[in-house]
């Protein structure tokens, strides 16, 4: 049961996200019926499953929200911006109500929400003078003469698991039966042998003809809550009641299974021409459109399963998979070793094929753990939407390259810093409408978020077309707060970077939005923790642009594989400037621990010594010159082997007490190489 609740919570998180993105879409396109349907459906699912899993408050609150959206779904009323904002706020509150054992505070909140929702319903309905807000108004009311009945063909194939969700497909068939005259066939084609029947699964499907006065949408609505879990096809057979005319029905089915288009007979055409009503024509056009669009899919997959584009996998399973793949690589290199020893041509060939496949498998596993930035972009949109209301600034969000894929862990850690930058841009960057007009800028501000891949790095730019940074004010502030002394000579570029220093805020008044104690210094720290960097560039009254650079994955770095004594060590390539060879004697003579290279005195650490290796020091050693802040430092190793892409494994909690080694990497031979954190190493040993 617990795991079901967890799954439900996961699912609800996704529901909320879909609701948010749907609502933001509606803001620009309030008449988008598809989106409204989706919102309605999610509300309904929340209501149902919330109650089932014991989240009663969720269920109660969404009940009224569902009624509200029913008004829009039935096209009785139109969505306006107040409703959107109201619903967005409700979603935030719903998130707080995701508790199984509510306190009295939760109850009060829920009651308030219900009251507010009812107010919204009242506001919307009263303004149009339609009493009785819960009545579903249908475009085709039932008092039309029976002669206007239309015959539809419906194929309803419930998904195998439909019963598990608590849906009884029979009710749906009953509901159809209530809508008009039906000719129902049950298909047991998929029924397995008795011994193989799983009583929790649904094996039957229905095909039926229905003659009804309702339109095709109403029929679709019957299946609205099972749309994800069943295949439903509804097609128009004839514009009159032909339910008792076996010939027509048989003709239709024949055409259907022979993959031909069903053309209603001449009598139908006559009928519709006679009626000559616009409504009828619209409906006909709609039905034809439906026929056309479904024609392709019918050809191939009339009774086939719907194809699934993506599946949800526990991220721990992916981690496990990655581990297995790296173990496979290790095993493979052992096999290669054996194969090269024995020189069997057949074995060698096999080993080679194996290697190729495993490399593909590794890349595949690696890309599996990447997710597109798109998946979190709704949070950017939401923030901008909320802030533009709060700050009374109109802002348009432009995104580019949201399909760029980044390691899941990075995206999670990146969110907070990015949202903070956006908050900053909204608060300090973008001006309000009057100021913008005075500056002869577009009245609506613009924030651009761009993501692109550069080598093994991903670059994310956040640019606003606002006021830009005020160089002089930053400079003065830096002087007064003691970050700078007036002797310091700095380029404009360097001055701008000062806003990342801690204790720096030029805003004279703290607003509710930014300045909540988290400054840009924290943003920079977070990004540096992920081995990334952040830069700012700006032009007064034109733009401010934050550029964030991050490694694609937290767990893979480019490094240099070296040996010290008998062990392997990896030095990250990002800090390496140059590599020299040097005679060991030269290092022994020098007691100041400095070595002259290219005419410069370079301080160094001989790792062979500090790591207390027992092995003989080789005659020729290597100096790997790394940057240490603004200085350069030499790390002397015994041998430089090659460039190496290191998959970093954590050393585990037992080795937390040290920070010189940031992890270990498994070499092709199965041996381990320690990854050196050069900064910490130099701090410790120099």
């Amino acid at each position, binding site marked *: 049961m617990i795991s079901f609740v967890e799954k439900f919570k996961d699912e609800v998180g996704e529901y909320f996200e879909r609701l948010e993105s749907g609502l933001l879409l509606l803001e620009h396109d309030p008449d988008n019926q598809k989106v409204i349907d989706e919102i309605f459906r999610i509300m309904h699912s929340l209501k149902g499953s919330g109650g089932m899993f014991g989240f009663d408050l969720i269920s109660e609150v969404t009940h009224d929200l569902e009624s509200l959206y029913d008004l829009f779904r039935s096209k009785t009323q139109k969505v306006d911006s107040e409703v959107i904002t109201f619903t967005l706020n409700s979603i935030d509150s719903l998130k707080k109500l995701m508790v199984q054992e509510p306190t009295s505070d939760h109850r009060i909140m829920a009651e308030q929400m219900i009251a507010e929702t009812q107010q919204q319903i009242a506001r919307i309905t009263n303004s149009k003078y339609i009493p009785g807000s819960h009545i579903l108004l249908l475009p085709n009311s039932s008092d039309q003469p029976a002669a206007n009945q239309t015959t539809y063909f419906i194929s309803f194939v419930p998904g195998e698991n439909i019963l598990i969700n608590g849906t009884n497909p029979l009710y749906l068939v009953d509901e159809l039966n209530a809508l008009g005259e039906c000719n129902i066939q049950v298909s047991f084609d998929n029924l397995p042998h008795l011994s193989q029947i799983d009583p929790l699964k649904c094996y039957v499907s229905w095909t039926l003809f229905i003659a009804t006065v309702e339109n095709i949408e109403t029929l679709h609505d019957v299946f609205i809550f099972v749309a994800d879990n069943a295949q439903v096809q509804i097609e128009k057979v004839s514009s009159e009641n032909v339910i008792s005319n076996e010939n027509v029905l048989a003709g239709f089915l024949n055409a259907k299974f022979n993959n031909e288009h069903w053309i209603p007979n001449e009598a139908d055409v006559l009928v519709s021409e006679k009626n000559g009503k616009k409504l009828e024509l619209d409906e006909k056009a709609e039905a034809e459109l439906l026929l056309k669009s479904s024609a392709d899919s019918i050809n191939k997959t009339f009774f086939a399963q719907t194809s699934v584009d993506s599946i949800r996998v526990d991220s721990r399973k992916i981690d496990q998979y*990655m581990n297995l793949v790296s173990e496979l690589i290790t095993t493979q290199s052992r096999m290669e070793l054996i194969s090269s020893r024995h020189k069997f041509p057949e074995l060698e060939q096999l080993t080679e094929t194996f290697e190729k496949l495993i490399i593909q498998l590794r890349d595949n596993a690696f890309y599996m753990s990447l997710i597109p930035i798109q998946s979190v972009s709704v949070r950017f949109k939401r923030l901008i939407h909320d802030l533009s209301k709060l700050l009374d600034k109109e802002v348009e969000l432009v995104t580019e390259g949201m399909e760029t894929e980044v390691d899941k862990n990075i995206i999670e850690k990146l969110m907070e810093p990015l949202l903070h930058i956006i908050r900053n841009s909204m608060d300090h960057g973008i001006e309000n409408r009057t100021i913008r007009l005075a500056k002869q800028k577009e009245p609506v501000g613009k924030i651009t978020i761009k993501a692109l891949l550069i080598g093994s790095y991903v670059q994310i730019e956040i640019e606003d077309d606002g006021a830009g940074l005020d160089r002089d004010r930053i400079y003065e502030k830096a002087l007064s707060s003691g970050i700078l002394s007036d002797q310091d000579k700095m380029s404009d570029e360097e001055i701008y970077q000062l806003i990342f220093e801690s204790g720096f805020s030029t805003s004279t008044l703290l607003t509710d939005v930014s300045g909540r104690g988290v400054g840009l210094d924290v943003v920079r720290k977070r990004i540096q923790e992920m081995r990334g960097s952040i830069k700012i560039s700006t032009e007064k009254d034109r733009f401010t642009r934050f550029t964030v650079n991050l490694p694609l994955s937290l767990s893979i770095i480019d490094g240099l594989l070296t040996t010290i004594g008998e062990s392997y060590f990896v030095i990250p390539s990002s800090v390496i400037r140059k590599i020299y060879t040097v005679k060991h004697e030269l290092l022994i003579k020098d007691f100041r621990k400095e070595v002259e290279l290219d005419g410069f005195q370079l301080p160094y650490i001989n790792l062979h010594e500090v*790591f207390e290796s027992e092995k003989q020091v080789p005659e020729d050693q290597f100096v790997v010159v790394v940057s240490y802040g603004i200085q350069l430092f030499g790390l002397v190793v015994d041998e430089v082997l090659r460039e190496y892409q290191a998959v970093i494994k954590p050393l585990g909690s037992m*080795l937390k007490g040290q920070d010189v080694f940031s992890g270990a990497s498994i070499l092709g031979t199965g041996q381990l190489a320690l990854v050196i954190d050069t900064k910490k190493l130099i701090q410790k040993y120099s």
Partner: protein
Amino acid sequence: MAAEIIQGLNSYFTFRLGTELFAVNIGNVTKILGLIEITKVPNSPRYFKGIINLFGDVLPVFDGRLKFGFSETVNTRNTCILVLVFEMNGQAVLSGIIVDSIEKVLIFEPEQINPELTAGNGYKSEYIHGIATLNDELVIFLNIDKIFSEDEISLKI
């Protein structure tokens, strides 16, 4: 790596360090590995032998004899690495310990284990959960969670 501590079993895994016989609850044992090459971590304490690659994860390995104050382990045909899982700061943690030989899995009822006899052997008494006799020999029951709880390895400066 996913590892689980299984609790409530009366089976104990016995092994030798030097001539002494030790026992840990079978729920704390996940694997037994033959002796393989161990990657040294520079400047770590002597009883910490280094790290090994355990199916794609890094496993720290200790010298059991040094850890309990005996002389350093001399590798023999019977030397092996016992992979233990125990709780540390609320998390399941894996660690390897080098032992001289693996003995049997034996069942001891709780009343067979005498918690009074812990003193006098020179061990920290909190490391020991109790003692039992088996064919005139003492079996020392280890309290795995306690033994490793203080063992965050730090490097010499």
